[in-house]
Each structure stands twice: as C-alpha cells, then as structure tokens.
C-alpha cells in the first residue's frame, strides 16, 4: 500500500503508523456519559469495505492523516491532513 500524503506525495506504507479508526477525532465531551465514552474508546463499526482511518507519517513529515481506504481491497482513495478534517466518522 502507498498513502498519498498531502505534504510529501505518494509514500510507501512503511513510513506510516496506523492509529485506528478516524472516529478518534470525534472525542465526546467529558460529561457525555459512560455509553458515549465506551463507544468512543472501545466500540467500532469495523466495516468490511470503505473505511476512514488515521495514519501517522512518523518516518516522513510527522503529519496525522485521515485516509479513505477499503478494508477488503486495500485500495486507498484519498488522504487529508487530520487538522483539516472536522470530525472523523463522516
């Protein structure tokens, strides 16, 4: 797999660390309640098909990316800087 880093261009997967589903960007309010926090920390849609997850370009520019990816085909269709993405789940 190669990820099209918006800052560095297309780079090999070796340069990146997978950081889980992009729902991590949708952090609940501290007082949102146990269910909201359980959903945020533990529960996942875990889709077989298109997904959106976070990758850290640790061996590149150090940016956090939101990547549109297919979990069945491993096709990567888009990558954006996490700081530009509002909410992760979309």
């Amino acid at each position, binding site marked *: *797999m190669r990820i099209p880093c918006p800052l560095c261009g297309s780079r*090999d*997967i*070796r340069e990146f*660390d*997978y*950081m*889980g*589903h992009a729902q991590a960007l949708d952090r609940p309010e501290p007082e949102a309640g*146990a*269910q909201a926090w*359980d*959903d945020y*920390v*533990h*529960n*996942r*849609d*875990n*889709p*077989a098909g298109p*997904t959106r*997850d976070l990758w850290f370009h640790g061996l590149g520019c150090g940016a956090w990316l939101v990547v549109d990816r297919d*979990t*069945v*085909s*491993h096709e990567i269709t888009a990558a954006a800087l996490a700081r530009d993405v509002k909410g992760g789940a979309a």
Partner: protein
Amino acid sequence: MRFSGLRVLTEGLTGNKGWRPHWRDPAPKSDYDIIIIGGGGHGLSTAFYLAKEHGLTNIAVLEKGYIGGGNVGRNTTIVRANYNLPGNSEFYSHSLKLWEGLEQEVNYNAMMSQRGVLNLCHSDGQRDAFARRANSMINQGDDAVLLDREGVRKLVPYLDFDNIRFPIYGGLLHPRGGTARHDAVAWGYARGADSRGVDIIQNCEVTGIDVENGRVTGVQTSRGAIRARKVGIVVAGRSSQVAAMAGMRLPIESHILQAFVTEGLKPVIDHVVTFGMGHFYISQSDKGGLVFGGDLDFYASYAQRGNLPMAEHVMEAAMTLMPMIGKARVLRSWGGIMDMSPDGSPVIDRTHIDGLYLNCGWCYGGFKAVPGSGNCFAHLIAQDRPHPAAARYRLDRFRTGIGLMDEEGTGAQHNLH
C-alpha cells in the same frame, strides 16, 4: 463410520472405494432449537458439545462458505496453555485438556502432536518474566520448564545463540503444547456433530437476525428464514457484521495476520519455537513444510492477504533466529482475519437480547481455543450460565473496566495487541 487400523488397511488394499462423505448435506429445516452462526472450528465444536454433553441435537450450524474454509484452515496449528492471567489461565488449561482427549472423543486422527512449545528469552528481565509465567502455569496445573542457555541449546542447537542483538539467555518450555492438524480438527468436530443429529448447512449465509420483544426468534439466510429459540454468533473476523444485524456495535476491530510455509524439508525443527522479541514463531508440519508467522500487519483489514513490509519483517526475524532458514524457499503465504478485542482476550457471553449469545474476540489465538471455546459456549447456551473456565470472558468488561484481561500488559485499547 468409525475409523480403525483394520478399516484403513482394508480400504488401502481395495482402492479406497468404500469411504463415504463424513457428514450429510441437509437442506435447512424451518425450525431448530438452536442455531449456531458460523461453521468454523469454534462453531462446530460448540455444536458437538451441545449434542454430546447437553443432549441437544435439534441444532443447525450455518456456514456461509464451506467447512474448513475460514480461519480454522488458515492458522499455524499451534496448541498451548501458557497463559498467566486469571481468566485466560484456567480457560486455556481447560482447552488443552480437551485437546488431549479430542482424537478419542471424535474418533478422528487430528495428528495432535505434543512436541513442546519453546519460548526464547534474550535478557535477564525477560527470563524473570518467564519464571513468573512458568510458576503461573504450574499453579494452574499445567507444565512448564525453565531452561538455561545450555538447556535450550540441547533442544534446538540450530539457533543463533550469540546473535549480537538477541543472544539467547534461556527459554520457557511447555512440553504439553504442540500442534494439531487444523483441517482434521474441523472435520472431526463436523463429523462428530453430524453423527449426533446436528445439521451442518454450508453455503448458507445469515443476512438478518430476527428479534421480537427483546427475544431472538430466528435468522434470515440466503436459503430462507429459519426459526430458533436460541442463536449463537461465533464468526471470528466477521463478528461486527453479524452482531450489527442484531443492532450491536462490538469492541472488535478486524485485522490481518499473515503466515508462511516453505517447501517440504526433512525433519529439522522438532518443537514449536517462538522468538517473541522478533514477533516470530515457527514449527515444522508433518508434510515437512516450515510453518511460520509474525505479528499483525497492524491495520484494519478483511483482505485475507497482507502486505510486503510485514512479510519482510518476518523473514528478517527468521534469519536473525536461525540463519539456516535462508536456504529454504517460501512456498505460500496467506492471511487470516483476526477479531481483535481491546484487551487481547475473547468474549463468551450473553447479549442484551434474550436467547442470543456471542463468542468473539479471539484475536490471533483462536485455534488453540477451539475445543475450550466450543465446550464453554455450549455450556452457556444450554444452561444460560457461564462455564466456570470462561466466566471472566464478559462482554461488558470494556464498558465497566472491571475484569479486563490484558495478558500482554500493554493496555486495553485497540491497536495495542
């Protein structure tokens, strides 16, 4: 049909024309007492123990593909009970005992080979951790032998003992661990369940779970609706999809784990050897292939194949541990879909829907659990209370934080195991 030495001999002399299919191919009935979704190792053993130990036989096992086509046919066949934490410790101990009686129980040659599992250590700290684990194993009633460097050398002289980064300090030997023929385990349980009246229905994909007034009433499938009083979900990497049919969102993320096998070689590796610092483990199949693997690719995937960085990492670890392996040629590689839970331990529990039971989260360790998981899941389904050996595999432990089983001590969040 029972197997015996005489039967094998007779068939061998008469062209093997007398063998018949080992299980029926029934059409689904419209109604069962119990439906097991998933005809993998865990689902088949669940059906087998429901029939054998609980006298329940009006059961269907629904498999969307074919028996032996999922993870039970895609693993590296290792069997062991070398766990440390309460919860895991008694469960895997229970499962290993079932392994030891499996072939007699199902009258099927599962090629159970207790050749010993040897974990290697490369530092004083790791050796101390092994001593602690060995004591836990012995306390649990299983076997463990702490080996010094020379003790390891005696067993596996072909390793690179003086590797500059990972010199071998010693090892933890679990003599009752070993390997079993994975396909035969699936076939043996399938035949055992079928012969007791369980319907094993292949090419039957569940597309919906019917719930009325908080109680499960049946399932929708690619071969029509089937009613049932109780339904068990045991579908490994596809747990999230099937549970979603009942409105559940699970603490599971499916990941890819790769494995590799070389061309057949003469006997050279007598044990299962694990090199934890390199995320590498290896054994030799009875056909002669060196079967080995490493860690997850570490991204969510349903592809049943991995990428080259992890393949390279595994090959590098192999060369680090046993340089002689460089002369072997890789024949095949493949991947399995692992249902990863946040704390690395599984779930065998009821759900919020009456009559609906869940068995998932086996991470990359499902094969050794096949007998224990089925045995305990059958107990839960039949008696509506957990088997003592699996009582801690609660689904709500993530929400409550009570009873988390983080065997590796790395944390109870996704992507840490």
